[in-house]
């Protein structure tokens, strides 16, 4: 999802600054009406319907499905798997993203442009093409396994896909660019005099990195991490294809509940959990850092 550039708050702020006097009836409400109505009628109302379903047990209001989520061992282990995979994915994506962003911020113009291409091309590449590529590479008769077997390094194929490892590889590949852009923007904004000051009072390169540079860029690290985590929680395509039905994460479980076991209320309750988690994390980003700055709005 490209374009996480401007926060609702930023839009509100921009709009507010340009506010006209309060004394005339504003004709511009007519401008926003079609879009707002479309969203209220065809997204918000259906969403309310879904939330309502989550409290429905044979036509009666009930918290049954929420209890089911906390007590069913199958669902609990699915949620635990999701959290584990997303946490690992976020950590790896942040480390790799920090490395790439740091190099980009400190290398020459020509190298930077080429490295930017390496990040931008996969960023814009269809999620299905990426999942397919990893499937081709990681399958038991895929390119990596057959290459290793032909080279005599292994005798039987390594299990690289249809397991957590495959899902994590695919998700990291998808999410690293989302970490790179905000981190790069933050690093470009670090005042060089800060680092000169640290060096001039005798700090080693490593000390000045750990004590000055890292804390200065920390808000961006936090924001990027939360963003990646939110995306990871809602991931559907990559886990479905690379998990091959064996690693079932939250989104796929929700879809299976509806399309195969026809448990709409359970899907509704899980959707509410996912929504609340997303909202809480977004709130946290807004609290700890300036959302607009973190998301790299230029």
């Amino acid at each position, binding site marked *: 999802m490209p*374009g*996480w*550039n401007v926060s*609702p708050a930023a*839009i509100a702020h*921009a*709009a507010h600054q*340009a506010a*006209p006097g309060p004394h005339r009836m504003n004709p511009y*409400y007519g*401008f*926003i009406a*079609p*879009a707002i109505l*479309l*969203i*209220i009628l*065809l*997204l*918000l109302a*259906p*969403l309310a*319907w*879904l939330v309502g379903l989550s409290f429905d047990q044979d036509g009666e209001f009930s918290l049954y499905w929420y209890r089911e989520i906390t007590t069913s061992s199958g669902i609990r282990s699915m949620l635990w798997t999701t959290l584990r995979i997303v946490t690992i994915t976020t950590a790896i994506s942040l480390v*790799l993203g920090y*490395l*790439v962003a740091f*190099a980009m911020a*400190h290398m020459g113009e020509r190298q930077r442009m080429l*490295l*930017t*291409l390496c990040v*931008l*091309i996969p960023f*814009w*590449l*269809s999620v*299905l093409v*990426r999942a*397919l*590529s990893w499937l*081709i590479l990681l399958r038991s008769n895929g390119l990596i396994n*057959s290459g290793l077997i032909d080279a005599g390094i292994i005798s039987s194929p390594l299990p690289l896909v249809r397991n957590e490892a495959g899902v994590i590889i695919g998700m990291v*590949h998808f999410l690293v660019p989302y970490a790179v852009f905000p981190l790069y923007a933050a690093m470009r904004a*670090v005042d*060089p005099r800060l*680092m000169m000051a640290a060096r001039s009072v005798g700090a080693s*390169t490593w000390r*000045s*990195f750990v004590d000055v*540079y890292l804390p200065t860029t920390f808000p961006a690290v936090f924001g990027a991490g939360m963003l990646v985590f939110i995306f990871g929680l*809602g991931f*559907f*395509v990559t886990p479905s294809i690379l998990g091959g039905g064996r690693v079932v994460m939250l*989104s796929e479980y929700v*879809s299976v509940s509806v399309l195969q076991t026809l448990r709409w209320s359970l899907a509704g309750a899980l*959707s509410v959990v*996912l929504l609340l988690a*997303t909202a809480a994390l*977004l709130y946290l980003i807004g609290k700890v850092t300036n959302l607009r700055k973190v998301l790299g709005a230029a």
Partner: protein
Amino acid sequence: MMELSRRAMVLVSGLAWLVGLFLLLPGLITVPVSLNESRFVRLPREHLSLRHYQALFSDPGWLSSFLDSLSIAAAASILATVLGTLCAVGLWRIGSRLVALFGALVLLPMILPPVVAALAMYRTWVALNLYDRWLGVVIAHTIIALPYVVITVTTSLALLDARLEQAARSLGASPLRTLRDVILPNIKGGVVTGAIFAFIISWDEIVVTLFISTRAVYTLPRRMWDGIRENVDPTVAAVASLLMAATVIGVVFALIYSLRKTRTQT
């Protein structure tokens, strides 16, 4: 900026290049696979062959999916651009506390986890008889693409002097006339960027489409999804290679364009 010793910088950029290749290379693998001569998904052994491209272009199924995706993305991006631009301009000129609420509402489709949006729409689309219909997919894609248009247009509006609009209005121009003659010419770039975003979002959209259509409307991503899940055949790799090529060309052009722009500005 931070000064590193030469050795440390070589190490850091070396590692960064490894990550860059990890990001870039997997997508490229579809190209040789699509050129392999066998009916299996593997690298070409003896010679290259275009048979999978031939199969792709002579298959009416893939062709109709291509047309479905193209017409849906065109319609959805036009709708999203018109509604999103109007909405962004409206939000820009409405000075009430409600603006924050409306702004958040318009960004909702972007923030919502895809599966949740898909479920909510699925039920509603069935009830409204929009399920598995061209118009249904267009409306869903319009809603999903809307925030991207609003964001890009809002970004260009932030650079526009609000007094221009006030001047036009005080000279008696209607809001629509002001939009056409004063605001739009000044935010053209943002609107075009928003339309391109919307087109790509719709062209690529898969999760919601999976829920609200089956076979009557069968978009390219949907057909690829089935092709990957059921049995991977090299025709999918040929489609993937073409999409990969389009992405590379698009990104390189965008990068050159933005470099030119910064050069002429400085």
